[in-house]
């Protein structure tokens, strides 16, 4: 790999790793695992850099790798352990409205979704990908993305309602 690509790689990692890690976290539900997934994906990216830079683009490749591995990891995790949830952030006197609890509800709600639906919801509403982009990312049809997203949102909404978290879905279509 030429030297200029090394610098491009470093720049890319600096710019994209945080967003990738957040996406991975929402899909797999564990920060440490998310960090591992992102590092693995970025290592794969380094090896494949000349090829992906010419084809789909490095960011799309990295995100696709992260999301698909996170989906697999989430499935394995669901089989291996029944533990879930999130340690709430430090409570403080300014957290009167229970923001950390809300975060835990969101993460718990995402964990309760089937892996594919979870990925669809995260890619659509956190990463702001279109239905078509999400379908390409996951290697499924646009119809699957629409149905999985709709199902995921319904389940999330039900979870939020049980937890008393209001949710405004006006900002996004469910298709």
């Amino acid at each position: 790999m030429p030297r200029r690509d090394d610098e491009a790689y470093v720049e890319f990692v600096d710019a994209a790793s945080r967003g990738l890690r957040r996406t991975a976290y929402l899909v797999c539900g564990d920060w440490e695992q998310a960090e591992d997934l992102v590092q693995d994906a970025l290592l794969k990216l380094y090896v494949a850099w000349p090829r992906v830079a010419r084809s789909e683009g490095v960011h799309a490749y990295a995100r696709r790798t992260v999301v698909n591995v996170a989906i697999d990891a989430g499935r394995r995790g669901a089989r291996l352990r029944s533990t879930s949830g999130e340690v709430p952030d430090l409570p403080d006197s300014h957290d009167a409205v229970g923001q950390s609890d809300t975060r835990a509800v969101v993460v718990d709600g995402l964990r309760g979704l089937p892996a594919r639906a979870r990925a669809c919801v995260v890619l659509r509403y956190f990463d702001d990908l279109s239905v078509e982009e999400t379908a390409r990312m996951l290697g499924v049809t646009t119809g699957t993305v629409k149905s999985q997203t709709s199902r995921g949102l319904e389940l999330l909404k039900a979870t939020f309602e049980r937890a008393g978290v209001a949710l405004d879905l006006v900002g996004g279509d469910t298709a």
Partner: protein
Amino acid sequence: MSPDIKELFEAAADDAQRDQLDARALLARGKRKLRARNAGVAVGGGVAAVAVLLMASQLPRELADGPVPPAQTPTQPATPTPSAASSAPVTTSRPGPAGTATTGTRPPQSAAQTSGAEVTRKLSLATAEERCSLRMRAEYGAAGTPVPDSLQRDGVYVTDLLRIRLPGGQTQYCSVPGPAAPSYDSPPRDVREACGRLAWMNLTSWTPAKQETPDGGFTAALWSNDRTAVLFCDTDDPGATRSGPVAIQGASVQLLRTGTGTGWVRVHWLGSERAGRQYWGGGGVVRNDAVRYAMFAGARKLTESTAFYGVYALRSWLPAGVTKPDRVVGYGADGSVVDSYPIP
């Protein structure tokens, strides 16, 4: 106005407190990976042959060491065989020195039995240290400033929260990780600067057990996967909730580093009354030179266990006519009583 889903996701995935990935380190790893891959193509089968030889030579050693036992099923804490009707001392069972998990038949289910809990999240050491430090400063002031009386007196403190899911779907919060006073007999040092210094990095997994006290308090013990450490959480306040600015009023936590060696803590773990006949859990730091502890109800010995560097649990059932144990007695090697305290 309700937040939209994007805002909720943004908040849930807030990583402002997390370190940025080291791009240069990743680059170096990528280069090594690339070199290894290229080299692997060149040497091909030779590497595989060496790997097979290495694995073959390693296997006997691993077999001799024995595998680290897996954590027990979260909802099935370590239990000895129950002896519901017997008035004889209940034989205790504990993890062996190599971390062998306590085994026993599953206790009979009863309406009173509510044991079992699972930890819903474990923390990385770095995260725990950071949160512990923040909590220390917030609640007790910075290290080096005058030590509050409560800290001097108790030597234990609230640190951070570990959420535990209880049978029935409820959740509780347990504090993690805070060093405890090294023993009952020595004053605590300024532990506000000691967050994370007690080794709990081996806590790759947790085996929780739970005891709900009659007054609504909560106790949980969490064993490390390799049985070298335990996190002991105790919430004294009935009905403690996380609705206020302080998560669990009156909670305490002891991270007991177990095993042998300087600074390690011997513990015993006996029992406590729970809903009539059944009880289990309880215990504390071994005092003086006690080698075993027993629990009595009047003159009747209910249970006995060896004090050791480690933590174990037992579940026992009170003999007929006994409603609760009332005293714990520790014995020295010669059989003399070296510790004795009532169970309130």
